[in-house]
């Protein structure tokens, strides 16, 4: 097959491992570069602006799933968790745009890599839930209120990994097959179209991990408060609110 084996490590599997290592190295180096120098809590300047812009969205997502009393703990733990997924998957996806024939295989076009990422996401969610609610709360979430709720964790692994693998692997196969058929001109258009799933799939993986995590670490009293808030608001007349 022209595109190599999609499921297991074969003769071109080393490319995938080296690309993932290069992506990790780039991510770590970029993070250390952005965090270097004087960091201020006031008006940022220079590279701190870029760093804060990059993680601002994840801070917002983490704030949405926290209360006032545990906000610092949740934001400090969840933001790096989500940001690492987004930027690592994005860098891995962008390997498809290198103009070198064998090296341009993105690690996420490989089912083992995406399965590993999805397992990291789901087990990381469990560990974070155990940290915020205690181990009993995390295990209770798997069996209560629905005793079969642990099945959804298994299907989360499958759906996260298969979605990422299908999108990026399909994009990579399209690029390779089109470049084999028409070597000049047309692959450029396919590359530009391929930028969209690269960003969207990294974003979607992170968003779904965040929503699973928000479901895993929510508290009963917070849910009760939200229910009273919403139903009380509906009973009161809506015209008094803006």
């Amino acid at each position, binding site marked *: 097959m022209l595109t190599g084996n*999609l499921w297991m490590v074969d003769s071109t599997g080393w490319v995938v491992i080296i690309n993932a290592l290069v992506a990790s190295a780039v991510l770590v180096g970029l993070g250390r570069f952005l965090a270097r120098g004087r960091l201020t809590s006031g008006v940022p300047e220079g590279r701190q602006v870029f760093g804060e812009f990059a993680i601002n969205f994840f801070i917002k997502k983490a704030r949405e799933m926290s209360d006032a009393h545990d906000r610092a703990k949740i934001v400090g733990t969840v933001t790096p968790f989500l940001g690492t997924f987004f930027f690592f998957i994005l860098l891995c996806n962008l390997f498809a745009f290198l103009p070198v024939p064998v090296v341009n295989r993105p690690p996420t076009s490989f089912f083992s890599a995406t399965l590993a990422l999805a397992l990291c996401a789901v087990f990381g969610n469990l560990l974070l839930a155990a940290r915020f609610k205690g181990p009993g709360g995390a295990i209770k979430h798997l069996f209560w209120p629905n005793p079969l709720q642990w099945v959804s964790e298994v299907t989360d692994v499958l*759906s996260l990994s*298969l*979605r990422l*693998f*299908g*999108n990026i692997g*399909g994009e990579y196969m399209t690029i390779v097959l089109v470049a084999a058929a028409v070597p000049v001109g047309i692959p450029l258009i396919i590359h530009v179209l391929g930028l969209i799933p690269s960003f*969207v*799939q990294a*974003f*979607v993986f992170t*968003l*779904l991990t965040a*929503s699973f995590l928000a479901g895993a670490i929510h508290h009963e009293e917070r849910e009760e408060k939200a229910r009273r808030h919403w139903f009380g608001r509906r009973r009161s007349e809506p015209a008094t609110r803006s």
Partner: protein
Amino acid sequence: MNPVFIALVAIIPIAAGAVAAAFAMRHISVTALEGMTRQPEIAPQLFTAMLIGMALVEALAIYTLVVTLVIAGKIVV
């Protein structure tokens, strides 16, 4: 088995999955666009929710793609 027969069988799930996912995605994007034009101030939240919904629908099409890849892997040339 005949490789042509396997290829013809492998086409069926991806075609059905793509058609169904196209209808579902049309519904999602039309509804989200209507909401965005009616209330532009909540457009970012709607866009995020639209992306999540589209990803969930797209996962079904991707499952059929995986089934197609598995069937196509049986072709021995």
